[in-house]
């Protein structure tokens, strides 16, 4: 069977869609995640440079040991019980977002990274990208033309803060993946 056609999220997803605390991955249930807590901030902009309000971002990542909390990961039995690895946030009126999480370890065969999804009014399909901490060898990053790889590397701003801006179209356009 063919997968169902995607459609835009639209502008009118309900106000309570993003639960309080959904952008904080450092806690799961009553537990606290192991590892180095970090904050990621960024701004999402369109072609004319305008920041985009009411845009939804979701992330998925491995825990501090590089383990995904999912049975397909052969190491999942040892996944951190205090870390789900998923979170969601919505941009403010200027297009800014903030996420709190832990710095992921390196999953097998990959550099440490965080998967991002962009859902928004006017995006007929989910846009998928990946944030890195360094421009090191990585199976997914190496698929990106070398001149654009730096756009996927977050800028370090202090000991536990990173900045990852997302440009949907235009100058310094973020590389997105076709899966």
């Amino acid at each position, binding site marked *: 069977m063919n997968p*169902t056609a995607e459609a835009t*999220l639209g502008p009118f997803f*309900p106000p309570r869609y993003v639960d309080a605390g959904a952008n904080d991955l450092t806690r799961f249930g009553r537990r606290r995640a192991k590892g180095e807590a970090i904050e990621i901030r960024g701004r999402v902009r369109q072609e004319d440079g305008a920041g985009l309000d009411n845009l939804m971002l979701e992330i998925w990542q491995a825990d501090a040991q590089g383990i995904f909390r999912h049975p*397909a990961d052969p190491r999942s039995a040892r996944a951190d019980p205090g870390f789900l690895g998923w979170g969601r946030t919505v941009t403010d009126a200027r297009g800014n977002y903030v996420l709190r999480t832990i710095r992921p370890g390196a999953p097998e065969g990959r550099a440490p990274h965080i998967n991002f999804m962009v859902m928004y009014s006017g995006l007929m399909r989910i846009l998928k990208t990946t944030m890195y901490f360094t421009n090191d060898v990585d199976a997914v990053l190496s698929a990106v033309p070398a001149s654009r790889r730096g756009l996927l590397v977050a800028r370090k701003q202090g000991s536990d803060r990173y900045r990852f801006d997302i440009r949907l*179209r235009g100058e310094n356009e973020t590389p997105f993946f076709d899966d």
Partner: protein
Amino acid sequence: MQTLIEPRDERTQPARIVPGYPQTPLRNPREPLVRRRPTLSELTGPLEVARRVKLLGGDIAGRGKKQAIGQLIHLRVRVLDEDGTPVGGTVVEMWQANAAGRYIHPNDDDHAPPDPNFYGAARLVTDENGLFELRTVKPGAYPVPTRDGWWRPPHVHFSVFGKVWLSRLVTQMYFPGEPLNAQDRILNAVPDPAARERLVAQLVPPSGKPHDALAYEHRIVLRGRAQTPVQR
């Protein structure tokens, strides 16, 4: 359990830039999308979203004095993978306009009245057969502020997680026989007529008592096939 993700037939998916939908050329990438081979990172995903978000029951029409205005409907939706295997235990989110075509969202303008008895959203988990049911009212059509007379037909938004990151889906469901379906720019951004038809729910004979609601069935197919791990 491992999941195999294959490329989709592009004709069954919407164009990214849609004529007459003025935001689309500003927001969709100009550069070609980068092809990658999925790794464990994309072939895993959150399975316990229900522990992270607040679930809202599937009866959103209300009862008695608190019943929403509009035509009561029952929606029975089945979530499957590409092999037709039910996707149970996954979080589904839905939202819709009220019967007058107005969303609860503060950004929606004043073209139609809000209904104090209708929030218009649910969040639930599919059962082991991939099923979920909603009791709601039929959403109204509404105008898109484009100045050229584009009206969205009645539709329901769905967001579904599935088993892995690449099975995540955001889609819309339409109603059969609606004259606005033929002109809707979002529905018709999908090139393949059969794929568009699959976005339209089916009217079915009402079941259960009392017979106070029209009944519709719908199917959502997520990306992916279950794959038996290969012994090495």
